[in-house]
């Protein structure tokens, strides 16, 4: 009988409890969902970063691109040695503009510069360039 006495209040209270439970469920899902979403986003960014880095520094076409360094100067001025994934190029008798072209090109190639040695001899330059990829 005592329950019947307060049945209206009980109905309201039970539904209120249900609503509070639902609200709690939602807030838990929101916080855990946001955490998981942040983790997934971080993972996606990591993937993208690695893919981009690999694309730049492990470019399969870099060997061909390097060959263009040979064409920038007359063949008489360059000694070219490419073995596997390593290049040694020695340039002699370079003019200032040729040197500029070469250094600009080298700077734009995604290779690991092991050595870049430029020496001025009178009005010309010699350059030794070693790189790997």
């Amino acid at each position, binding site marked *: *009988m005592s329950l*019947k*006495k*307060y*049945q*209206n*209040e009980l*109905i*309201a209270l*039970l*539904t*209120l409890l*249900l*609503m509070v*439970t*639902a*609200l709690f*469920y*939602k807030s*838990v*899902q*929101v916080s*855990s*969902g946001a955490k*998981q*979403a942040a983790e*997934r*986003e971080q*993972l*996606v960014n*990591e*993937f*993208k*970063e*690695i*893919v981009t*880095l*690999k694309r*730049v*520094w*492990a470019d399969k076409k870099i060997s061909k691109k390097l060959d263009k360094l040979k064409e920038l100067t007359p063949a008489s001025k360059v000694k070219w040695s490419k073995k596997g994934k390593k290049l040694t190029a020695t340039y002699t008798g370079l003019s200032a503009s040729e040197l500029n072209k070469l*250094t600009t090109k080298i*700077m734009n190639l*995604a*290779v*690991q*510069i*092991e*050595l*870049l*040695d*430029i*020496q*001025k001899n009178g009005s010309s330059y010699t350059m030794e360039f070693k790189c790997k990829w």
Partner: protein
Amino acid sequence: MNFMGSNKELLLIHAGMKRVFLSHSINVMLTPQYYTLKKEELPVKYLYQAKKIAPSLFDGLLEEVGSYEYLVYKEGEKWVFIAYNPGQIRSLLLSKGINPEQVGKIFFAQQAVEHFKAPVLLGENEALVTLDNTVVVVPQAALDEEVKPIRFTNNFTPKTGITLQGSYGSLLSMKQAIALASVFLLFAGMFFIEGARYAKGSTATIEELQELQEAYPSLQSKIQRESIADKYRSIDSKERRKREIIKSFSGLIFKGATLTSLLVNDKGVKAEFSCSDEKVAKHLMQLAKKEKFSKVKSIGSNTVQIEGVL
């Protein structure tokens, strides 16, 4: 078998009855003294339509004290409307020694009209009889002596009855409770649905991640991913630094300052500049210091040596 759960003792409440003392819960049936009856043939099909027009049918017929509620049902072709005052019924029950809490269902005599085949005596002076298919109270003196009265029993219990909602000191009426419950349920539903949607997560990110994992299976392992990332990050930062330094050296070449040597390797960078005079050399040194090279020194009068680390 009574599936309506009204198998409790049925007590007929009338004006002349004495106070009772109850230790158990009961159902009660009220005599016509405590309700107002109307029977109408109306062009309505559904109960809810009939219930809607119930208050207008009793306009001017009811006392203006207290609020009335209505029981509506169909009897043959006619709609039966019973208007009752819950406050009045509560007072009546209390006056007869019945606590409203002890009452399960309340019925009206008219609901059991088919059982009043003979008079049911109400105390010593009155009786309940059926006239024109309506249960009414008449003086016992008016009864036909040849007709034997019948006893009022639990068999008179109709299928449906009313309850005095919120009549037990309740703070909320049934209507208020239902309204509140509806609002709470609505919000609960909304919160559950929203929660479920958050639980699923953003499908766009999940799909993108799946695509990346399928395209680059070697990167699925965290250890492998970190190892590859470390390798290329290190190369990237070192090589970018080398190129930045070479670029900054080219910025140091101006009229009067000539680069005579430049050495770049994995350890660092070293450059020598030949200047036309001391003034140029000094200016070059100032510029080099601004570029924050680790060592800037003058060799001889017009030669400047600059060193930097990666």
